[in-house]
């Protein structure tokens, strides 16, 4: 493979891993728990910024052309862990204020507004993260090894893949456990879940924070690779892209979320890369968004469960010889008969 092609492929692979992490995080919040996190991209952004300003040297370095807080020059993995912490704290703050038994659509809209305002605030308050220019020259964790840049990118693919695998394992364990079942109960009927002893408010806040942590870490992984991060990377419509991925791929299950991640952010973006430039420069981009919007509507209408639907959980049959207790043979409740 030529080096140009390799750079392309590695970039694609890293983005795939990061997008899958983001989709698993949103799936845990939305698909499993029924949380409506319309500020999702904000958490990935918070993670990216935090990882960046933890990895960058003091702002006076590099000629001092950009302003930002911190600048501690920390190595990996502190950067990504710090990112996760920032995501968790932000989620806690936002969650405590907005997850307060508002109507579900109010809640979603408030989160959306938070996301929009955050973009404005960060763009205008330059000393924080260098405003709309964003932060750049973020060091790659493998810089210290002094290897060929091509080798460096492949090493990073490995890093991203490990992060993605760990996230998948975590998400699977949560989803397929009694805890995951409680979350789904909350999703299905909050009042009934509370009536059987679930602390609904606490569970929702918990998953909001967990999702925020994973989203932030995905941002941390991404920024280490691409080396820069600016408000244009996390405008509010990006949240809709992740939602589209989860809805199209299949909500409530992690395989579906991964499929969605590969189809929407990755394949879709790549498909248009090779189209010729026609019309005004924004046309292709604009068309992408129109198609995404149409896909969302189409799936919500025709196939809301997505490409890979949530599977029905069937439990293994009772061991032979197990004693099915004293059965009361009352009249059967169903036309087809359930009692034997």
């Amino acid at each position, binding site marked *: 493979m030529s080096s140009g092609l390799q750079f392309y492929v590695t970039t694609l692979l890293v983005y795939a891993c990061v997008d899958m992490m983001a989709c698993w995080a949103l799936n845990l919040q939305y698909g499993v728990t029924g949380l409506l996190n319309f500020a999702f991209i904000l958490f990935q952004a918070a993670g990216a910024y935090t990882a960046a300003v933890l990895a960058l040297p003091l702002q006076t370095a590099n000629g001092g052309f950009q302003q930002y807080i911190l600048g501690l020059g920390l190595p990996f993995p502190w950067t990504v862990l710090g990112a996760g912490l920032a995501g968790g704290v932000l989620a806690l703050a936002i969650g405590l204020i907005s997850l307060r038994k508002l109507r579900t659509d109010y809640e979603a809209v408030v989160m959306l507004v938070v996301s929009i305002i955050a973009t404005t605030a960060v763009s205008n308050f330059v000393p924080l993260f260098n405003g709309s220019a964003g932060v750049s020259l973020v060091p790659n964790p493998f810089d210290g090894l002094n290897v060929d840049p091509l080798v460096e990118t492949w090493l990073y693919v490995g890093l991203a893949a490990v992060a993605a695998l760990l996230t998948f394992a*975590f998400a699977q*364990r*949560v989803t397929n*456990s*009694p*805890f*995951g*079942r*409680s979350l*789904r*109960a909350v999703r*299905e*009927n909050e*009042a*009934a*879940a*509370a*009536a*059987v*002893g*679930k*602390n*609904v408010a606490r569970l929702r806040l*918990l998953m909001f924070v*967990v999702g925020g942590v994973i989203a932030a870490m995905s941002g941390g992984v991404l920024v280490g690779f691409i080396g820069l991060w600016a408000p244009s990377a996390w405008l509010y419509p990006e949240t809709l892209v992740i939602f589209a991925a989860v809805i199209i791929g299949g909500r409530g299950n992690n395989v579906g979320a991964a499929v969605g991640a590969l189809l929407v952010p990755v394949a879709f973006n790549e498909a248009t890369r090779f189209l010729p430039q026609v019309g005004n420069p924004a046309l292709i981009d604009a068309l992408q968004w129109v198609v995404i919007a149409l896909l969302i509507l189409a799936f919500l209408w025709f196939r809301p469960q997505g490409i890979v639907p*949530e599977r*029905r*959980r*069937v*439990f293994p049959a*009772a061991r032979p010889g*197990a004693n*099915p*207790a*004293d*059965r*009361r*043979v*009352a*009249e*059967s*409740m*169903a036309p087809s*008969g*359930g*009692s*034997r």
Partner: protein
Amino acid sequence: MAGEELVARDPTTALLSVHDLHCAFGGLNAVDGVSFDVQTGGITGLIGPNGAGKTTALGIIAGATAPTGGTVSFDGRDITRLAVHERARLGLTRTFQLSSEFPRLTVLENLLAAERDQPGDSLWGAVLGRRHWGAAEREYVERARDLLARFGMDGKESEYAGNLSGGQKRLVEIMRALMTRPRLLLLDEPMAGVHPNLAQSIASYLEELRDNGLTMLMIEHELSIVDRLCDPVVVMAQGRIIARGRMAEVRHHEQVLEAYLVG
């Protein structure tokens, strides 16, 4: 269902006691000074015409509605400020008037979701994996299956609860409530919208549960069911209690007749 879980510790004090409950919505007094006790054992009926405030009163007892005045005591403990899920943990469980099954969970999962003390039911427990919670899960699956068999629904365990008939959904809700090992079960019109034959079946199950020692408080409209199951009966109208006692006495009460004719 082990009977010993369902009997209150001290049979002389009332299991549930509500005192001077008030609940106002806007200018309307939905519940206007309601006080009554529910003794351990048996099914207490809460009846009255539409708009009498029965569902509001039940909602206050369950913790879903906040009263504007009054107290609720459960087993000698003031639970007026407790959240719904905390009351469920104490053994006070309710069912709902409108079907409240978890539709996209299977019948078996509906029951399992209600199980308390499941080590896998926390984030950390989940992360530790099946090795940590697998044994408890197998035990609870067996318990749930026993319950399903008792209620004649063992063939439906892998069916999505949302695909069941109305009567079957009611049963799932009752079974789910039983999984929480309740000491007092609040039933909000369990027969509403159910075919009369099925209603009689549900009534039989409730009788069985009563005979096994489960205490229940039930709102019900169908007076023949109330007659069959409930003793004593508390009659509400326009937010107040207008009569209480055995069904036989109460049905001849002048105020009660008036309320049902007018209300």
